[in-house]
């Protein structure tokens, strides 16, 4: 009890010290603000770029690369933030709820068109202002070089005669690559034994390398080392047109199966972000996309650059949402 008065006195001192400190800091800050508002033009503070997936993944690399290039001309720092969870839902929610002032954007994937159907979130593209589309990946059917199947037809013929005999590995369950395999089964009228891998496409390629599955369906960029060294053979891609880097590999579309699966990446801003700010962001991002570094990176990754402006991207998202929702229902992966 003896301590009581002392403690009280300390409180007074502490609080007054804190007040003084905060006054000083506020003072400094106020100076800063007036300086900045003189310019009075967007951008006048750092831009937050939300990455709805983990550090080190494909989406993360694309975002950080573009941010790095764009920062040089943007005039303000760009802060990349990984907000992971719920198949991207947490990152999307964060941006959807942010102030629509142009300082919050998210690098979206085609998950934006599936999270509602799979029950991860209620958000759709309609809760955002699309800015620009930057790249896409599409899955391909691959086998090991020593596999007996030289063409997709041979493999599908075998599967047709031997239902559930072929083990086909793919990415995360319920993800787009998985949906692609199911769609292929339906279109070709065959049954595989599908083995999804919980940690994504890269581990599916490890299973194929180890001979634990007969074929895999993942995008080429998750198995580049093996494709380039000739250990894997691509039998068909799920793109609308043949890949530039692999002109000999046919698409399933031209084989007569209507299987087109694309995961498109692009930037979204919260609903209500002013059009002129979206324009500024679009122009900066477009310039970053044209940078040699980005082009080379995409080439090395066997990934694909695609450019869509805000209006086109929005149109695309509307179509994508409709078709993927149907796909997921067909595949039996929809929740309620």
């Amino acid at each position, binding site marked *: 009890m003896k301590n009581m008065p002392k403690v009280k006195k*300390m409180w007074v001192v502490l609080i007054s010290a804190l007040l003084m400190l905060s006054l000083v800091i506020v003072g400094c800050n106020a100076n800063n603000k007036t300086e900045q508002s003189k310019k009075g033009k967007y951008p006048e503070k750092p831009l937050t770029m939300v990455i709805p997936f983990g550090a080190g993944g494909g989406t993360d690399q694309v975002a950080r690369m573009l941010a790095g290039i764009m920062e040089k001309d943007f005039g303000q720092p760009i802060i990349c933030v990984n907000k992971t969870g719920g198949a991207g839902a947490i990152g999307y929610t964060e941006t959807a709820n942010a102030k629509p002032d142009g300082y919050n954007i998210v690098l979206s994937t085609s998950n934006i068109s599936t999270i509602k159907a799979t029950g991860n979130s209620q958000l759709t593209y309609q809760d955002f202002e699309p800015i620009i589309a930057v790249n896409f990946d599409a899955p391909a059917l691959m086998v090991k070089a020593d596999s007996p199947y030289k063409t997709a037809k041979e493999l599908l013929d075998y599967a047709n005669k031997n239902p559930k005999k072929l083990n086909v590995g793919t990415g995360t369950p319920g993800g787009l690559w998985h949906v692609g395999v199911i769609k292929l089964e339906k279109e070709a009228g065959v049954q595989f*034994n599908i083995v999804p891998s919980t940690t994504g496409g890269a581990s599916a390629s490890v299973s194929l390398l180890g001979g634990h599955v007969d074929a895999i369906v993942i995008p080429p960029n998750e198995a580049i080392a093996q494709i380039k060294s000739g250990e894997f053979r691509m039998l068909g891609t799920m793109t609308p047109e043949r890949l530039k880097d692999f002109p000999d590999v046919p698409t399933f579309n031209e084989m007569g199966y209507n299987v087109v699966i694309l995961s498109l990446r692009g930037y979204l801003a919260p609903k209500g972000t002013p059009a002129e700010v979206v324009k500024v962001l679009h122009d900066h991002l477009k310039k970053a996309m044209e940078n040699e570094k980005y082009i080379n990176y995409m080439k090395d990754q066997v990934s694909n650059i695609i450019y869509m402006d805000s209006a086109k991207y929005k149109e695309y998202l509307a179509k994508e949402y409709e078709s993927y929702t149907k796909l997921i229902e067909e595949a039996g*992966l929809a929740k309620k």
Partner: protein
Amino acid sequence: MNKDRLLALILLIVSAVTFYETAKFPELSNDLQVVDAGFVPKLLALFLTISAGILIYRSYRISTEKIVISLKDSGIIRIGLVLIIMALYGYFLPLIGYELGTVIFLGVLMIIFRLNNWFKIVGISVAAMLAIYYIFIVSLKVPLPLKFL
């Protein structure tokens, strides 16, 4: 209350919740159900229920320590107070910002722990706040909410 009986009670609640939740898992039409999503959790819940039974049975045969929770215990009060302060700090962090929140948080804790040198309290709080600011926010770009810096 007897320690083992309290543990058994907790385990029974956990397994009841598990059984209740697994019963709600949807039936899926696809082929991924050789062993379904509820299999392992149900197995574990069953194990916990049996363990709870063994614990209760044992508690009547072997005497175990009793656990007494009393609000007169100064240790318990101190723990509660610290936890509440931590929760408040976490809750108010986005509102009052990292800088002021952190200095107040550290200051209040040091006062509770009877550090009687106000110079140290303020100095250490501000120094620690700045150190973490430079490590986390400046170098590692962790987006803690800032109001001033």
